[in-house]
């Protein structure tokens, strides 16, 4: 081999389709297109076997193949002369390729339709540049600009991120500082963080960066879209350019067909024209504690080193998030002995000049609407309703996490209640939709209801 296969990893993103040339036993050539060539190791690649087509038939008769893969950074085409070795129907390689196909199908609303029959492994016998596909000497300007905007990742960047993780004193500062660091360190300016919701098989967004809407409370079903697929597979997923563009159009089509009720849900924030997406699961001791997703309008934005770095960051972050939740719960127990209830703090009613907001709790749906607009549902809604009701009845303003945990009406799980993430979600939704109601931290495990409006509370079935 004249060129190291490792140096061509950027070619294996499916940004431009690859070409597969084969030949039957009776000498008839075949020229087909491939969406993706998977890098296996320094001497092997794999091609997906989904349909028993002519190329596959030819390979069973004649194991020689030729593949062209373009380098999306430079435009240089590369020719890989291959020899079929084996087909894998299980194992890490098969799983990785099958997951990619599932992620694509999920975007198309066709999850479960396309099946990978096998990962066909080929030995790479020879590599050389394609003479007629001459690359530019430097990456195209859009990639150069992206590279310039993003300082080259080094171990120092990981140290910076690690320090931010160690310095965070709450889930909120932890998540926000990481999303900020992703932008400052890598130039990843559009990111989001989701955690498992109390509802089974649902993720809920608790923090985003780079979008006009903060998207807090936006839900994604496990298995849907890149975030849902990452959670389901518990493996990182990266999608680049061409494939994403095709999928986006299909996703738009599907969106147009959604029923009215679905549009009332909080939309997941996202770029209007995303070209690259990268999602990683946050796994701590086998438990999924969240999903981190970054996206970009640049077709091939997340390179190999970016992917490796975000995966590494994800493993740190997962443990940090889990530790933060455990730490806050433990701190609650230490600072608030069992049975302690905060004395009621009576505050003066808001001045008459302040706006009046109508807050309605719908008991059947367990959701809250403010002035007729959807705010939040489920446990965060029950928490808010409890706080507002207590304030209306007694004038109390300060509350503790511990008393929420002890309140059976909230139905929080005995263990791993994720209360901090629910409060963070509630705070973010209020900031966006009803800033006159605030939840201000006032010490570990304590927060205060900050009202800058007159409230009219009502319940409806």
């Amino acid at each position: 081999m004249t060129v190291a296969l490792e140096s061509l990893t950027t070619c294996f993103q499916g940004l431009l389709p690859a070409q597969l040339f084969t030949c039957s036993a009776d000498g008839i050539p075949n020229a087909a297109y491939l969406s993706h060539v998977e890098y296996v190791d320094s001497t092997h690649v794999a091609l997906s076997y989904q349909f028993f087509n002519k190329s596959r038939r030819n390979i069973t008769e004649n194991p020689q193949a030729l593949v062209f893969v373009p380098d999306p950074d430079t435009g240089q085409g590369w020719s890989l002369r291959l020899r079929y070795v084996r087909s894998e129907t299980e194992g890490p390689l098969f799983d990785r390729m099958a997951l990619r196909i599932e992620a694509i199908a999920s975007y198309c609303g066709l999850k479960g339709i396309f099946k990978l029959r096998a990962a066909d492994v080929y030995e790479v016998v020879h590599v050389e540049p394609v003479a007629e596909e001459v690359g530019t000497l430097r990456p195209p300007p859009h990639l150069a600009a992206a590279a310039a905007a993003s300082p080259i990742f080094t171990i120092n960047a990981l140290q910076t991120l690690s320090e931010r993780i160690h310095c965070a004193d709450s889930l909120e500062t932890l998540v926000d500082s990481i999303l900020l660091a992703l932008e400052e360190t890598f130039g990843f300016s559009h990111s989001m963080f989701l955690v498992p919701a109390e509802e089974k098989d649902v993720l809920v967004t608790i923090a985003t960066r780079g979008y006009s809407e903060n998207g807090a409370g936006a839900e994604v079903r496990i298995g849907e879209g890149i975030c849902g697929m990452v959670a389901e597979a518990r493996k990182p997923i990266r999608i680049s350019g061409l494939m994403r563009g095709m999928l986006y159009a299909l996703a738009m089509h599907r969106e147009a067909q959604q029923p009215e009720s679905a549009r009332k849900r909080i939309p997941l924030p996202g770029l209007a024209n995303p070209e690259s997406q990268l999602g990683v699961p946050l796994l701590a001791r086998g438990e999924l504690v969240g999903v981190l997703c970054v996206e970009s309008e640049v077709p091939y934005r997340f390179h190999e080193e970016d992917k490796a770095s975000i995966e590494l960051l994800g493993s740190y972050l997962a443990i940090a998030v889990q530790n933060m939740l455990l730490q806050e719960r433990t701190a609650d127990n230490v600072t608030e002995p069992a049975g302690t209830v905060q004395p009621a703090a009576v505050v003066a009613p808001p001045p008459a000049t302040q706006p009046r907001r109508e807050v309605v709790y719908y008991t059947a749906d367990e959701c809250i609407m403010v002035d007729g607009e959807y705010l939040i549902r489920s446990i965060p809604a029950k928490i808010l309703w409890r706080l507002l009701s207590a304030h209306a009845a007694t004038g109390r303003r300060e509350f503790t996490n511990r008393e929420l945990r002890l309140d059976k009406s909230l139905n929080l799980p005995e263990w791993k209640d994720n209360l901090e993430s629910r409060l963070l979600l509630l705070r973010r939704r209020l900031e966006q939709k009803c800033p006159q109601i605030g939840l201000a931290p006032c010490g570990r495990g304590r927060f205060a209801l900050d009202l800058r409006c007159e409230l009219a509370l009502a319940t409806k079935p």
Partner: protein
Amino acid sequence: MIEPDLRAFLEGGLGIHIGTRTSRLEPNGARALAVKVEDDQLHLLVYLAEVAARRVVPDLRANGAIAVGFARPIDERACQIKGIFVDARQAVDDERRLIEQQVDGFRGNLEHIGIPRIGTTGWCTWPAVAIRFRATTIFEQTPGPAAGTLVAARP
């Protein structure tokens, strides 16, 4: 055999690749630039850069078997035409405009899916060689279970 609708598709500025093979059944391939369907709806001229032609024309002269794949990146529509090589010659200046038009169309297609034109400006387009062949079979190749279906044949 090549109906007007298909002809319009083929000549609309696509990704085009030529597949050939050696006497030892080793596959060879090259990127092509443009295609012209002759009025008999049976013969095609496929244009490719001279540097690319050097790899595949010897195969064609030796055994005559050719496969040409066509794909439109914006919707993945694709087909493949197989046939018998007739001859190859240097493309003349009068044909350069046709080549440039179709290459420009292909780059426009790529632009629609986020690949800037500058990413392919280094690709060789001239001098070019014209390969003439007679189509014998046409296959559907749009991704999916129908890929590989025989659309038309005239042995």
